């Protein structure tokens, strides 16, 4: 008697866990946003002929739970369900500087049931460093979801009032000021500055949290992070943001943007922003592609999505498939040049 109850319970637990791990998780069925300003959902469009989608669609996030990309993906998933007529299930596949998840997404069956939401980093930098099993030709680009803005932040004790003062000091005192950063994109930026004659010491921290701690604790002079990571410290005067990027989306009172510094814009403008977009494997049938494009477009128009993305500090920003692909290719070439030159 006891044995049977036990077995049944354990099987239940195992099933529950399979659900949790995302294999067809009904628990992940996105809750419709209930923010007061949301319109009631529009009538669902009739599904295309061969009834796609018939089961939940996986949205692979190549990083661990809790990162900026992960939370953005969950926001997208929560708002996309009704437009896809199936739940979008976020599936974290971290590792290998984001390449393991991207590999899985690109090697999946091109049936429209596996997509990925990712910063362009693993597409443009990783091919030159960790040699993943994919390249740009394997990718179908849907659209960008957001554009991650960067903040150039200094320790207020340094006393610089503007980027110009900082650059002038760096030119006269090479390899003195230390920049904390935590990803390859910002490492590229430091290399590009070096090429332009501004030599900083690169201190590669393991993550955004450690980078923020380093600038708050005065262990480094400068940090390159997302705006969201340092905004709280800036407001309290514990760190000073000298410049932000993506002026169309992100603005902090009294802080100039990269467009106010033409020289900086010329050196870093092409690479400092982080496009976050949705990609899939090549070879998805044309009607399904159209369906996904349409569903994404509607998702991005949701007030709930726009509001939540704004609060995350990753405002909605969509350039379209072609521009997304072009920008990725441009970043790829820059990264290739710098990495070949330094290694």
């Amino acid at each position, binding site marked *: 008697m*006891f*044995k049977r109850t*036990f*077995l049944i*319970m*354990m099987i239940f*637990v*195992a099933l529950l*866990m*399979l659900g*949790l*791990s995302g294999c067809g*998780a009904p*628990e992940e069925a*996105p*809750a*419709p*946003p*209930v*923010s007061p300003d949301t319109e009631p959902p529009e009538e669902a469009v009739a599904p295309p002929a061969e009834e796609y989608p018939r089961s939940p669609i996986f949205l692979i996030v190549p990083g*661990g*739970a*809790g*990162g900026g990309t*992960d*939370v953005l993906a*969950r*926001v997208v998933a929560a708002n996309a369900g009704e437009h896809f007529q199936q739940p979008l299930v976020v599936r*974290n*596949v*971290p*590792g290998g500087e984001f*390449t393991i998840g991207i590999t*899985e997404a690109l090697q999946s069956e091109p049936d429209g049931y596996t997509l990925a939401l990712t910063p362009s980093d693993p597409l443009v930098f990783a091919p030159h*460093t*960790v040699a993943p099993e994919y390249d740009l030709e394997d990718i179908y680009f849907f659209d960008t979801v957001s554009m991650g803005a960067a903040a150039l932040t200094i320790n207020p004790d340094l006393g610089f009032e503007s980027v110009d003062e900082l650059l002038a000091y760096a030119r006269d005192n090479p390899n003195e000021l230390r920049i904390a950063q935590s990803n390859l994109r910002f490492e590229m930026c430091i290399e590009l500055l070096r090429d332009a004659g501004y030599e900083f*010491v*690169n201190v*590669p*921290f*393991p993550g955004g*949290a*450690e980078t*923020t*701690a*380093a600038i*708050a*604790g005065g*262990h*480094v002079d400068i940090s390159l992070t997302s705006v969201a990571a*340092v*905004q*709280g*410290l800036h*407001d*309290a005067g*514990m760190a000073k943001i000298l410049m932000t990027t993506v002026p169309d989306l992100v603005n902090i009172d009294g802080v100039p943007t990269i467009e106010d510094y033409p020289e900086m814009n010329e050196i870093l403008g092409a690479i400092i922003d982080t496009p976050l977009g949705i990609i899939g494997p090549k070879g998805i049938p044309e009607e399904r592609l159209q369906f996904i494009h349409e569903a994404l477009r509607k998702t991005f128009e949701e007030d709930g999505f726009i509001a939540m993305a704004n*609060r*995350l*500090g990753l405002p909605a920003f969509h350039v379209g498939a072609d521009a997304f692909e072009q920008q990725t290719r441009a970043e790829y070439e820059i990264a290739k040049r710098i990495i070949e030159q330094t290694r």
Partner: protein
Amino acid sequence: MLEAMMQAIPLIATIEVLIIMLVGIPMGLMLGAIPGVGGMIGVGVLLPLTFGMSPVPAMVLLIAIYKGALLGGSFSAILINTPGEAAAAATCFDGYPLSKKGYSKKALQASIFSSAFADLISDIVLIIGSFALALVAIRFGPSQIFWIIVFSLLMTGCLTGPNLWKGLLSIVLGLFLGTIGLDPLLGTPRFGVIPVLGRLEGLELVAVLLGAFALSEILLNVEKTKKGETAKQLEVRRSLGPSLSLSEIRESLKAFFIGTVYGTITGIIPGIGTSAAAFLSYALARQAYGGKSKGVKFGEGAIPGVVAPEAGNNAVSGANLIPLLTLGIPGSAIAALLLGALVLQGITPGPLIFINHGPVVYAIFILMIIANILNLIYGHLLIKPITKLLKGNPSIIFPVVVLISFTGVYSINNRLIDLGVLIAVGILSYFLRKGGVPVAPMVIAFILTKMLERNFRLSLSLSGGEFSIFTASPINQVLIGLCVIGLALVIVQRFKEKKLLG
């Protein structure tokens, strides 16, 4: 502060919050008790549910799961030597032997009491001193964290068991396992013999823990059970045993104090982690008790050996929120998820959070304390059913535990390679344990290696290659002093124990 607290009360006293608390905690306890599934997965899955909630209920739901899971993880560690959460691994050392001897109730009570009260103290520290403490914590840069980790590694020296060489072998194996994966600074692959492994950020911690403790234990038991178990042995194993006695509680106070203090400190400094806190609290307590309590050796079922790691890992949870709320710096992966939830609610963490969002923050604080009390109550209610459940017939339990562990480990990263790691570490640990080599030092060294290397190299890149950075600041000098004292204590202890044995 008082005014903000008064304003917080209406935010708390709602039916919604009450229901969330009553449901969230047991849900967390359950998730925590399932091997491989921890608070992380629970919080991740429930995050989208909070999008439609107002800030207080949203945060309370996630925090209730987080806190419940931290306690739940120790249940399966004690009863079947299978840490439900990475943080509970150190609880296996003495919790499981206690339960094998038929003292499951004592072990579980020790774990529940110390978890809840350590958490409570850590929360109170958070409420009173958050901003000031955060300012101290950020003084700990890479070179300071380096010394903390050196200290931790030295203290594992006292877990090496009777044979020093076997203990060292275990540490070296752990150091090796810890270096597999991407270079922590440059991101280039290492140990490409198995290319997939070289490209990971490192072996998955939970897979290593479950392999080292649970799988090896099951393999060892399979051998034993084949020989059959007498009815008497079965009864001892399945019995709940008596409750904790007053003198046992008094005896354990020192371990509780050590765990709470060490856990709180570790929690405030971002980036050290819950598992390290638990292992180190255990090692420190073992040192403080001279290797045994009430005639029972550590590792053979000493109650302080359960109390210290449990206090240590739970004290991290409140303290973890200190840098999170006041500076926007998440101290752990789960804190990062909480940060995401907070930001989505329109609350930007930072030094001004108390000014801009005082009532909400204090409401969260008060509810954290209530969550601890609920943890205590629910934990007690669960002792009997969960013991019955997990102490069933091994020929059913073991396969099911293996199945669940595999599913759990897979669900963390959705990668098959983690299961390979689990099996390989399990088999390795099985042979090590058969040969009398302790696996705990291996696991601790594994956890610490990456942090050690990263902070060492970060310090040097900060100083431009000058080694003086390691001795320059007063904090470093104090930490070096601690390392020396620690090492001396470990050596003295070894000699004493040797005399006892000889």
